[in-house]
């Protein structure tokens, strides 16, 4: 494994490769229709000159798509009331302005902090409870009603209660984030542990493996892809928790900016703040993926394998 190249670059390369493969298929079918050359092994195809241009085009397609979208938005946005919809250029200007006013970075880093701490707590607690529920039928039967109940409850409604418990500030926001995020980690981890192949457990029994050994060497590694799927869902839910908590509780951070700008009809700035919060979520997802590759290089990309 070439550890030297950063994982992100690897993903990009892999994406390009699959795009090239699709291209190759399209080209063989076309080419054989027109000139009827003998079928070429697809591995040799990417070297053909016309293809490189097509491949380049496909690679640029996402950028082109976004540019067209922004252009349409700019044209439509400039014809209507800026309170209803700000133009992309106005949003860009708003970014520059709030950055200059020193509002952007503290808000961003605060949201990031709440998210990281909240998700960290939810991750550790969720995995621990999930493993317990996955390995012990008694624990599963005892705890499952609560997990099922809270997973289905719009827990954001508990925010006022959390404030009563923890007061206004960082702690409350972390608590709201944890409250929203922890359940999907628990559910996915316990599902992953419970799905450990019976045959691997037979193997463990044959060699007299201890429960500790079974958890650490078999059940936990097996559940890792499930855990990360749970963590990704938890991240999305936690992000909602962060923003709502900031909006409702402290009026600080990104949520605070959203609340402020929304109440004062500064639509361009409002959109800038919302886009920043998306960035927090995206960065979180990338960090999660990097961590997953670190701890579980054998597992494929984490996808939502069980319930949200």
């Amino acid at each position, binding site marked *: 494994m070439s550890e030297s190249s950063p994982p992100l670059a690897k993903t990009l390369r892999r994406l390009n490769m699959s795009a090239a493969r699709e291209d190759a298929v399209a080209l063989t079918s076309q080419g054989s229709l027109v000139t009827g050359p003998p079928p070429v092994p697809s591995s040799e195809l990417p070297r053909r000159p016309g293809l490189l241009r097509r491949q380049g085009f496909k690679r640029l397609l996402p950028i082109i798509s976004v540019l067209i979208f922004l252009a349409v938005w700019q044209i439509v946005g400039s014809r209507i009331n800026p309170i209803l919809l700000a133009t992309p250029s106005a949003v860009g200007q708003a970014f520059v302005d709030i950055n200059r006013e020193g509002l952007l970075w503290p808000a961003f880093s605060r949201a990031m902090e709440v998210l990281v701490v909240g998700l960290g707590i939810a991750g550790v607690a969720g995995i621990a409870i999930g493993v317990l529920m996955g390995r012990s039928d008694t624990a599963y039967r005892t705890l499952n009603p609560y997990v099922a109940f809270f997973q289905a409850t719009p827990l954001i409604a508990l925010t006022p209660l959390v404030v009563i418990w923890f007061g206004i500030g960082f702690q409350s926001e972390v608590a709201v984030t944890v409250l929203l995020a922890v359940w999907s980690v628990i559910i996915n981890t316990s599902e992953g542990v419970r799905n450990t*192949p019976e045959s*691997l457990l*037979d193997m463990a029994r*044959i*060699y*007299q*493996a201890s429960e500790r*050994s079974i958890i650490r*060497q078999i059940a936990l590694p097996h559940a890792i892809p499930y855990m990360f799927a749970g963590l990704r869902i938890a991240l999305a839910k936690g992000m909602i928790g962060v923003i709502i908590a900031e909006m409702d509780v402290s009026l600080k951070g990104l949520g605070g900016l959203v609340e402020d700008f929304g109440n004062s009809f500064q639509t361009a700035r409002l959109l800038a703040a919302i886009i920043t919060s998306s960035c927090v979520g995206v960065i979180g997802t990338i960090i999660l993926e990097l961590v997953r590759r670190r701890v579980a290089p054998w597992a494929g990309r984490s996808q939502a394998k069980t319930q949200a």
Partner: protein
Amino acid sequence: MKGGSNLVAKHDEHTVGSTATAGWGAGPDAGTRPRIEIVHASKRFRRPDSDETFTALADVSLSVGQGEFISLIGASGCGKTTLLRMMSGLIPSDGGEIFLNGKPVNGVPPSIGFVFQHPELLPWRTLEQNLHFVLKQQRMPKAAAARAVAEKLALTNLESFAKYYPQMLSGGMQQRAGLARALVGNPDVLFMDEPLSALDAFTRRQLQQDIADIILATGATTVLVTHEVDEAIFFSDRIVVMGTAPGRVREVIEVPLPRPRRHADLLGNPVVAALRDRVLSLVLGVT
């Protein structure tokens, strides 16, 4: 392909010398207590959605001598895998008793090895670490464990793949790693549950040869479940033919050929042909 060429080479050797085979294999040791004794064992299972039970195994008695190789063969539903799992302690018997080294089997006994139908290697561990998993449970000191692992990887021709993850290897190599893991604790008894059924015909023959040699070298008593008549004949001192409804032992057939055997030597061998007919007719129930 490798199996094919090997076969020819071995055959030449045989026609020239015919001295490769000597002695009558490691049959049951007279005088010592059998490794495994099954005394009137039976097993009942509950049908999925009712309280009714059905008899998977009825009154099986069998004993396996030290160093002996026996195969359990029979149509599906004859309880051969159930019997193997009972012998290895994975499931309890409902009646009768099973002894291993003179002690009643109650849970998985120490010092057994098991080769599963699929390799059941941990995908997140290298081959080496997969073998260490067994020795770690036995609390073997690290240096001794490392030596044992290296030795068994060499025995199964996998020493250059010690640091590979299982999924990087072919199916045949994975199954050899499964065998290496089964042997790494130097078990008295080796259980194998259709270990070669998922492999292609050539790999299977090659691996049969390898496994037979390795097992003979370790001297382990072996019980194999298979549904391949030729495989049973190739490996076994005795073949236990099982019948269905209820699962039971129909007949125990001796294989009067010395071990180790070569596939090439068995080609066109009239003893083998007669054995194959006998076993097949018993399995198919056309006696």
